[in-house]
């Protein structure tokens, strides 16, 4: 159970934005190549297969939270200790 909980499932905001951008670019690119190739050899099924390959690649690259999508974690403030909050506020950078 500890092992399962230790699998990271989280992307930071920057990472989510990049993951979405990458998936859009990959699928659009494969779709464009697929339609050109399918038109050249006059087989629409090849277009569909190439698009499916693009979908799989995008799924592998952007669905799991790879480390490159976790490089900019949010800088949370330190947990304040007790009720003497005034001094720590001034020290904040």
């Amino acid at each position, binding site marked *: 159970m500890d092992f399962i909980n230790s699998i990271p499932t989280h992307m930071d905001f920057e990472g989510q934005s990049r993951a979405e951008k990458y998936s859009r670019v990959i699928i659009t690119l494969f779709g464009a190549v697929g*339609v050109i190739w399918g038109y050249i050899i006059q087989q*629409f099924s090849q277009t569909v297969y190439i698009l499916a390959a693009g979908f799989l690649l995008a799924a592998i690259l952007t*669905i799991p*939270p790879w480390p490159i999508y976790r490089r900019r974690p949010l800088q949370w403030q330190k947990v304040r200790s007790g009720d003497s909050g005034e001094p720590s506020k001034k020290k904040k950078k």
Partner: protein
Amino acid sequence: MHSVLQRGNAILAYALSVLAFLTFLCFASTVFLDYRTKADMNTVKVVVKNVPDYSASREKNDLGFLTFDLQTDLSHLFNWNVKQLFLYLTAEYETPSNQLNQVVLWDKIILRGENAVLDFKNMNTKYYFWDDGNGLKGNKNVTLTLSWNIIPNAGLLPNIFSHGSHSFKFPVEYTTSRM
């Protein structure tokens, strides 16, 4: 985009939208093509009999028999938006009781990749040439035409008429002998 399921949903939805757009491109690239082409046909043997039509009224109706030749090359009609052609041969004629009679005598499916250069000699019809009365005997103008349906991946299901037709006459006497 904050969870695995949400990302999966988003890229699947986007991939399917792209697929719909590509299918539209496939349709748009073929919608204005001219699918008409030339077909030569000829009748070889034409007889007409007067026999009871048990499938309808049991009255004696005219039943035509004919064999035909057909030559056409349809291989250039196939493209990435044509899965198959459905050919059908129609006889069109006028009788005193009906201004327009149309009877389908024969049909054929050609899948993409199959031989589309047709050269048939002395073919029998597949379907009975019944008239709904006695309009075939001595009919001077029966016209055979070849048409086809294009079955596409995406888009319209057009009915195309070939260039070229053949007109023939039925004999003025019924044939009574067995054939």
